[in-house]
């Protein structure tokens, strides 16, 4: 690896917030103003999100989103270069990535996870189900979108969103907050 690149990638600021490119699909999905204010407060409190640790929460997804989240860690997407990493406990998490329409049996678990995470905590709804309830909306087995259970700061639609979409969505959300 060339020394310059090594040094650049070792720089203090992770690349996530400063990519400069605009996300492809997410023009209409900027955070709502009140979410943006909350998110802005959180991100500025956490050193601009240079080091964020993610806890993935499955609230009843089809596992499609989980596959994409898993792909984030591989050598191609490598979210670690952005200062992001997945952790094993919500106690360690700065970001909860929630997938799936919240099914009734997991609503309590989702709430408990949110309670278990120390504030400030950014909640990201990943996938159509988490953002809106998608095709399961209104079903007797489903509570609905994540924001009906816990406050959501960033929404990343897609069924499922690709790892690219997830990274861009996160970047857009955090940049919007800055």
């Amino acid at each position, binding site marked *: 690896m060339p020394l310059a690149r090594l040094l650049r990638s070792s720089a203090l600021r992770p690349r996530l917030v400063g990519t400069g490119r605009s996300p492809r699909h997410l023009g209409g999905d900027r955070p709502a103003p009140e979410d943006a204010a909350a998110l802005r407060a959180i991100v500025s409190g956490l050193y601009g999100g240079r080091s964020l640790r993610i806890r993935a929460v499955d609230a009843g997804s089809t596992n499609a989103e989980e596959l994409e989240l898993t792909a984030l860690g591989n050598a191609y997407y490598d979210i670690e270069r952005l200062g992001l990493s997945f952790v094993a*406990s*919500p*106690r360690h998490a700065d970001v909860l990535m929630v997938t799936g329409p919240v099914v009734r049996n*997991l609503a*309590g*678990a*989702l709430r*408990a*996870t949110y*309670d*278990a995470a*120390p*504030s400030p905590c950014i909640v990201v709804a990943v996938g159509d189900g988490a953002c809106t309830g998608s095709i399961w909306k209104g079903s007797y087995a489903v509570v609905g979108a994540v924001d009906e259970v816990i406050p959501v700061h960033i929404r990343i639609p897609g069924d499922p969103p690709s790892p690219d979409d997830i990274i861009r969505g996160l970047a857009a959300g955090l940049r919007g907050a800055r």
Partner: protein
Amino acid sequence: MTAGQAVAAGLPGAALLWVFAAIAGLAARGPRVRQLAHALLAAGSASGLLASLAHQLAALPPLKLAAPPILFGAPFVVDRLSAFFLMLLHGVSLMAAWFGWRYGEDEAAKYPPRLVVPLTAVFCLGMHGVLLSSGAASFLLFWEAMSVSSFFLVMADGTADSRKAALLYLAVAQAGALALLVGIGVLGGGSARVTLAALGTGLPALPPASRTLALGLVAFAFTSKAGLAPFHAWLPEAHPRAPSQVSALMSGVMLKIAVYGLLRFTSICWPALPDGWSLALAALGLGGAVVAVISANIARDIKRILAWSSVENLGLVFAMFGFSALAGAHGHPRLASAILGAMFLHVFAHALFKAGLFLGAGAVLHGAHTAKIEDLGGLANRMPRLSAAMLALALAAAPLPPFGAFAAEWLLVESLLASFGTGELLLVAVGAVLLTGVAFLAGMAVFAMVRLFAFTFLAEPRSAGARLAAEPPAPLRSPVAVLALAGLALGVLAPWASPLLPIPLTRAAWTVSAPPAPAAARAATAAAPVSALPLALAAALAGALVCAWLAGRLLAPGRRVRRVRTWDCGQPIDATMEYTATGFSAPLRFFLRDIVTAEKHLVFSRVHPANPWITRGSMEFRKAAGAVERIYLPIAGFIEGVGARLKLLQNGVIQFYVALMLVTLMLTLWVAL
């Protein structure tokens, strides 16, 4: 009043007060008089403690106290060695009396106080007498008083298990006492008036076989009392059964009395112990300690864990004694006395922390009504003060800095390193084995003590008793805290503990090949006297703690703390899902399965003879044979077998008895003529 007068008044005064305590305890019908008895016990202990401290601190020569004519005229004498053990006895008995003041009343239904109070006084009196006796007859008498009273104390709660344990204890204790009697008889030429000091004089005249027999018998008497493997099986059975303050006395002091006896007899009779005996003591001590510390990690009753830990610590003491004797016999007196000093420091530290842990276990038992470690838990929230004291004691027992046992281990390791410098293969080999063994024991003891503390005090309570427990009252809590502080003080001030010990603490000379290093570089480490290091380490630890605390405070100002339930992955958990003490030591049991194991047999049989894939499995699981099964039961079986043979003589036929008498008469006549 001079120190000498204080000693001359204090020690007989203690005995007298204890006699009164025994009488008051016997006469007591209500709590008032019983409290008087406890007050007398405590007063006697305090008087004895002050007297023994005065003796040690004033560096008095051996003092004659009294020569009661009924004990064959041999006077009571106190010297540095006995005063050290007297100090331990009186210190621990003071705490035990303080604890028993309240504990005895609250647990009166379980342990009848009219039995426990007078017997405790007799028990203490017995140990007191053993330490002061200079005559063989009074030594034996008080030795028996100590054994028999503690036998009754072990079965004080009257349950079948306790009786069984007490009988095992009695059998071993009486076998030991018998061995001692015979040993003294052989050494003293059968005289009842012989003094201990005179036992050594006749020794060279004895034939070698008698000498070895006497040595073996005396060694058996003391090592079986002190719980040296393989004579230790009674100890983890008997010690936990007694009321907690008595357990503290038994583990904290009585075992040390046996060590005292061994030291006294060897110093008189065998100043130069033969190598074989030293090596045997060291090997049995270390081996027994290893087995005991693993057993401590498997046991599931707090007091049983503590009893196993006592076996471990006494094993270590014997190993130190054996190595010291070996070094002495090979012409390294400085090394020998350094190790002996470390041994006394360890004995001191063990008395403090073990008494404290037993009293603390009593307080836990008092609050939670169970000593089963799997049924406890959550007590740190319910008894914060007791838990803090117990944490300190557990760390002291571990042994970790900055407590007394760690200081002793420190001195020991320095001596072991110094033994490498002697260049003698035997010493180096034993030193290397001991070094490895001591480090292994330290690691395992940490494991056992962490397990003991964590599963008693941390997490959620696993039974109703533990859930409803509350902070024990101050009279139960304070002795534990005092002993914890004493252990801390001993650890911090170890370099200055020499005036209290029988011999001063020294550092072994270190004459290993010096490397060709610049003198200035070596001066940095060599200049500081090693003796001040425990204090420096304690201070540095305290400093580091303050730094760490300040760092946390400064870097996280205005810390918000929110309490939520334990992270459960969304599925509520309760105390039954906690890791158990058994599970905690599972890796250890697996790793050491070759040493102490349960025997597991897996048998697979085919369901259909032609099909190798579908099998029916069965597993058999049983505890592997321990010392009881391997040693005690065969001996018992042998004695029973002999008894059954002898019973043939007693067949109830009068003609047979007459014939026997006739044969005896004829044999006697034949021998006589």
